């Protein structure tokens, strides 16, 4: 149990509860991006090997891409309506 892991885990739990409770969709996307960054840091701290670093890098890139795709779709639906 490291103090760094405890702090990042606390931020991740806070972000999870805020995703579930907020009503605005743009803020939900912001908190989702922050939570994916927290999980990426926890992966790199949990696995103490170079393979853990590779997993963290790939997960970071792909989760950011997914969040940006949802944001682009929200903009397109506003443009259609």
């Amino acid at each position: 149990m490291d103090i760094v892991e405890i702090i990042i885990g606390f931020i991740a739990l806070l972000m999870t509860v805020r995703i579930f409770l907020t009503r605005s969709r743009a803020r939900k996307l912001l908190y989702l991006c922050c939570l994916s960054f927290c999980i990426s840091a926890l992966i790199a701290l949990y696995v103490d090997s170079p393979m853990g670093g590779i997993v963290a890098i790939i997960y970071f890139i792909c989760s950011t891409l997914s969040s940006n795709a949802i944001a682009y779709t929200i903009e397109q639906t506003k443009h259609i309506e």
Partner: protein
Amino acid sequence: MEILPLVSGICCLLGGIGVILHTNPINKIIMFALLEIGMIGLIVSSYYLDIAIISSLCEPICTIILLLGYLKYVTTIKKKKKYGRNLPVLSK
């Protein structure tokens, strides 16, 4: 007690409840992304690292396919309202 399995389990649980409770389709897709985050964390906490790499690569593809389907659904509904009077084929 490690931190990563605890946080990932809570993410999975809240994502599964949120997919049931929310009614807007984009909110459902956001909650589905939260469930996938929890799933990848639980895979990494069991040290299956190669499976975690493949899952991370396949997650945005799944989300993008769902979003394309939602966009096509919305444009179809708008076109139906636009040409509903002129074309009797498209109206019920």
